[in-house]
């Protein structure tokens, strides 16, 4: 099924409802489709097999996404925050392509064989041109819908393939067609090159929910846009939520229109979500776990799960606040050991998923198995009731003297210490143990001593899980979508650090 059919269905059913942008002068569903058709006709004359996109969030993004879809050309949004050299290298990988580029980003690009650069303003003008809008488009058989370059925190970015069938399967199995009320509006602040930015467009359009884009996230602009546009739904990554709460508390705002706040894209610290539930008691919280390779969400912890967990005195129920909830009904999820054997409840292993939304495919290789199962490279376990707990990337697991140690568990314990604002735990090379456990700490109003933190961890976890190396820092390195840059941190910490006494 074609992603553009999602737009066609909405534009046929609710042509005059606002699809994009502000209440005052947004675009209707009819206009979104008309612009996508105009843009497609114009892009078709420019050749190229792929449509690359380099720019900020805004109404042009969905227009360009659907225009590419109409031509059945893969849409490849690029990360404008990359250094110029890396950005040009990614752009070259899209050839032969047409690249729609924000006018003021064009000077950053070097001429590249097989890549035709067009200015964003030229594309926008073409979308409004009646000659293009009325051009009859030939039907194009859908195949690859989106190419997303992974964030590359562990090496050269991989280009993940999402087919029209993966994305539409995700949309129609998780969203009710026109299930949104006319006054609903979603604030999209994740960047165009993030899977959540793409899935938000498709699910928003199919659900009939107006989408408001934040050009680029800052907590101040997020709060201001949410208030001004009476935003009812939004998705944030964990690092965004903490800073948004800071602004809300400082300004004494509660965002009364906000109904649902979903979060995902990384580990949510327990203290942050507990604070969010306190600061925004009228809001439904949803934790979503997913990967680029799975067309976004594969498991959700819903609002009722949040409330039940926070109200419970049963430790097994309460800890579910730190889970990602249960797998979506339209797919299968299993925990397996390193030999691929199925594991039972409370046994930690690798998370596998299977379903039509799962692509598990890159331009250089297909990693999904013949039977459709995709190994996520995420470690995790499920409790008896089927709640999934994600431990983090298996690459990040510390192997100390043959024991596998998951950094997430130690990070959670340290983050619960009142003197700790942020923490990362990782493995550093060690001649005796292979790896030793190291912790980077960002303190609150002067960090606690390493001895105190070590005793804190030892009292709650095994001694082998107690960090042996401590580093105290002003901040930890994150990329713009809130992913901790572990490789960078590891390299920095492999240098001279202050060993813990005792």
């Amino acid at each position, binding site marked *: 099924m074609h992603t553009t059919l999602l737009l066609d269905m909405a534009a046929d059913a609710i042509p005059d409802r606002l699809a994009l942008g502000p209440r005052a002068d947004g675009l209707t569903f009819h206009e979104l489709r008309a612009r996508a058709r105009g843009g497609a006709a114009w892009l078709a004359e420019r050749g190229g097999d792929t449509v690359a996109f380099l720019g900020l969030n805004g109404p042009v993004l969905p227009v360009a996404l659907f225009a590419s879809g109409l031509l059945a050309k893969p849409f490849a949004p690029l990360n404008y925050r990359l250094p110029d050299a890396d950005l040009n290298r990614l752009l070259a990988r899209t050839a032969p392509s047409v690249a729609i580029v924000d006018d003021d980003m064009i000077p950053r690009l070097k001429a590249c064989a097989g890549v035709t650069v067009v200015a964003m303003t030229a594309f926008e003008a073409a979308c409004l041109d009646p000659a293009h809008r009325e051009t009859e488009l030939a039907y194009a058989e859908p195949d690859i819908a989106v190419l997303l370059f992974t964030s590359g925190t562990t090496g050269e970015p991989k280009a993940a393939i999402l087919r029209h069938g993966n994305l539409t399967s995700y949309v129609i199995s998780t969203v009710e*067609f026109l299930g949104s009320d006319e006054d609903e509006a979603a604030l999209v602040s994740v960047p165009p090159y993030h899977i959540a930015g793409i899935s938000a467009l498709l699910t928003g359009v199919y659900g009939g929910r107006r989408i408001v884009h934040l050009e680029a996230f800052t907590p101040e602009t997020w709060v201001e846009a949410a208030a001004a546009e009476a935003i009812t739904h939004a998705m944030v990554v964990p690092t965004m939520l903490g800073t948004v709460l800071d602004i809300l508390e400082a300004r004494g705002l509660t965002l009364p229109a906000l109904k649902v706040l979903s979060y995902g894209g990384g580990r949510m610290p327990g203290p942050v979500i507990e604070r969010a539930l306190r600061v925004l008691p009228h809001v439904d919280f949803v934790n979503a776990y997913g990967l680029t390779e799975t067309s976004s969400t594969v498991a959700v912890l819903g609002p009722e799960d949040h409330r039940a967990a926070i109200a419970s005195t049963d430790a097994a129920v309460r800890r579910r606040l730190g889970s990602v909830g249960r797998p979506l009904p339209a797919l299968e999820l299993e925990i397996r050991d390193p030999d691929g054997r199925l594991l039972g409840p409370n046994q930690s292993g690798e998370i596998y998923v299977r379903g039509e939304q799962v692509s598990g495919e890159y331009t250089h290789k297909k990693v999904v198995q013949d039977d459709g199962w995709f190994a996520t490279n995420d470690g995790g376990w499920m409790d008896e009731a089927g709640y999934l707990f994600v431990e983090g990337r298996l690459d990040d697991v510390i192997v100390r003297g043959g024991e596998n140690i998951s950094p997430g568990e130690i990070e959670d314990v340290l983050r619960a210490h009142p003197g700790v604002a942020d923490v990362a735990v990782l493995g550093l090379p060690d001649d005796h143990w292979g790896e030793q456990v190291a912790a980077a700490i960002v303190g609150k109003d002067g960090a606690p001593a390493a001895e105190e933190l070590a005793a804190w961890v030892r009292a709650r976890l095994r001694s082998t899980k107690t960090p042996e190396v401590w580093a105290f820092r002003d901040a930890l390195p994150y990329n713009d979508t809130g992913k901790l840059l572990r490789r960078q941190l590891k390299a920095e910490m492999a240098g001279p650090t202050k060993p813990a006494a005792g």
Partner: protein
Amino acid sequence: MELKPGSRWRSAVCSTEVVIVRPPSAPVSLECGGQPLIAFAAERVEGAAPATEHAAGTAAGKRYFDADSGLEVLASKAGDGSLSVGGKALARKDAKALPSSD
């Protein structure tokens, strides 16, 4: 008719349009309003109407399935006729509402 996943079909007797989500395990005749669906590009005959026993209507955005063959379709446009396979009405799939996660 070869009901390939993603292929689009229209009713011969009303405004209903469908897209195939899951193909049948063996060839079947997919009908709307009692008449076999026609290719998406084909023109519907003027003045035709659904048979009374197949006129319960099809709702846009709803999925319909035939448990025997595994066939599942998504109605992309609503119409007065209802969907059937070999005369047997398709069941409507009422998906459990999921919390909004995007």
